């Protein structure tokens, strides 16, 4: 029996090494993500943050040159032993740095995943689900009158919230966000951050960000990645209040590089 209460480890990572071809991008990472926490990952560009998310989602299976070794356990089960990676990915929602509005209508963007998974249900159920996801992504009021217009014609900030609605459409257990605020204005960023705080009650969130202060605002615990290495993991408050053990973490949080 897998306990899903807060505080239990949702994801356990051991000896995780990722490489593209012969080029390693992440080495010997070990960490745990607890259920119902926001787990922040900070670090400069090319430190292996995005590769980490791809490994959790088993994207190595779609890329012939991506190699992953070590283990990632979700709910205690090694993701590598899953015979159907697609079912695994349906449990995990992902939001990218740049919003990808598929050239479908707003409605179809959100409804696509349930439809493909065969869990769309009746039209009324699907309508209800689309509305719920758009509301939670704080987008409903802006798009409710043009649900059947092209999603790719929305503004950047709206598209990013659309991708969040899309990521929520399968009621994932884990939500992974990769530098979601890059293409989004500050007001929208704040709105999305509020959404994330609410969502924490229902799912586990991994927040990769290049904005140190964003991790400070949102994350319960934070990991610092640098050059393919996980330098330090700790309670966010402790880290930011001078509790960093490694001098590199200290320098990075202090804005000395990155």
């Amino acid at each position, binding site marked *: *029996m*897998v306990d899903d209460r807060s505080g239990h480890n949702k994801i356990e990572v051991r000896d995780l090494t990722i490489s593209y071809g012969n080029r390693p991008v992440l080495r010997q990472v070990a960490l745990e993500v607890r259920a119902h926490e926001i787990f922040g990952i900070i670090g400069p560009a090319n430190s292996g943050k995005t590769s980490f998310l791809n490994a959790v989602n088993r994207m190595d299976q779609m890329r012939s040159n991506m190699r992953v070794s070590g283990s990632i356990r979700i709910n205690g089960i090694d993701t590598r*032993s899953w015979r159907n990676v697609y079912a695994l990915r349906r449990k995990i929602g992902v939001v990218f740095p740049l919003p990808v509005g598929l050239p479908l209508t707003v409605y179809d963007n959100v409804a696509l995943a349930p439809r493909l998974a*065969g869990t769309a249900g009746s039209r009324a159920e699907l309508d209800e689900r689309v509305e719920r996801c758009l509301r939670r992504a704080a987008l409903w009021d802006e798009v409710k009158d043009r649900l059947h217009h092209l999603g790719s014609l929305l503004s950047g900030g709206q598209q990013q919230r659309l991708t969040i609605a899309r990521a929520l459409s399968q009621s994932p257990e884990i939500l992974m966000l990769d530098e979601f605020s890059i293409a989004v204005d500050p007001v929208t960023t704040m709105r999305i951050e509020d959404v994330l705080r609410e969502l924490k009650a229902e799912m586990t969130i991994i927040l990769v960000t290049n904005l140190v202060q964003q991790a400070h605002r949102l994350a319960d615990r934070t990991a610092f990645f640098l050059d393919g290495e996980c330098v330090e993991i700790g309670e966010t408050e402790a880290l930011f209040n001078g509790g960093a053990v490694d001098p590199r973490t200290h320098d990075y949080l202090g804005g000395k590089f990155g």
Partner: protein
Amino acid sequence: MEPGDATRLDARDSRWYIDKGFEIVMFLCGISAIVFVVGIFLFVFREGLGFILHDMDVGEFFFSPKWRPTSLHHPTYGILAMVAGTAAVTVLAMAICLPFSIGAAIYIAEFATGRTRETLKILIEFLAAIPSVVWGFIALSIMNPLIITLFDVPMGLGVLNSALILALMAAPIVTSIAEDAFKAVPDSYREAAEALGATRWQTIYKVVLPAARNGLLSAGLLGVGRGFGETMAVLMASGHSINLPTSVFDSFRALTATIAAELGETPVGSSHYQSLFAIGIFLFFITFIINMTADFVVRGVRKG
């Protein structure tokens, strides 16, 4: 989560099996090109094998100009005259085609802009679309009388007529590959040259042409491949008499045209029939080598 959820969740569902099934189907279709190339070789070889094993005299085949497969007493199978004719026409066609195509490609890539450029490219595309047999028809009914009048010769079918037709047929492909080669030259090269005070022409001559060298070479090779492989147009434009051509007005016979003209009149399985397949094998190898070389030359550029 409920107990036993894990085993249920990672179960392979219908979507998984459909995905796997399509992956296999796509793979099989993906390798079809290889299957067909090998198949072409095997089936043509299979039909020509009897001739190669029993009737072919290698020296005679390659070095005799006498192609007399229907002779009752002493049939001879020499392709030298046809190889010489095909080669002569191809060389002449390339000599005409290359300067014009490269010039045209330079104009399209470096001088023309916007709507003019689009229109020019469409017209070149139309040139490429005209079917081979129509070119043959043009050779017979337009070029033939024209050459007779212009040069005061008894017959307008032959090396010159075929070369002009082939040059026009190869021009679109050579032009478009050459244009790609020019476009592949980074703009920074041009800007650097122009910053040094070079005119557009100096830039093209000193910078763009050398940088596009391999692409142009490959364009020329593909043109040669086309020349060797062209069938209907050359059949109709060449005059089709077996002859080692000595002047551009001489009639000749192409390897491809021989197959096209004689295959229908030979009994299946006869030496003559098999010898035509032997010519096919020879053509297959020639174009194979030309195409591989052209690809190798172009890839060399991309890597460098």
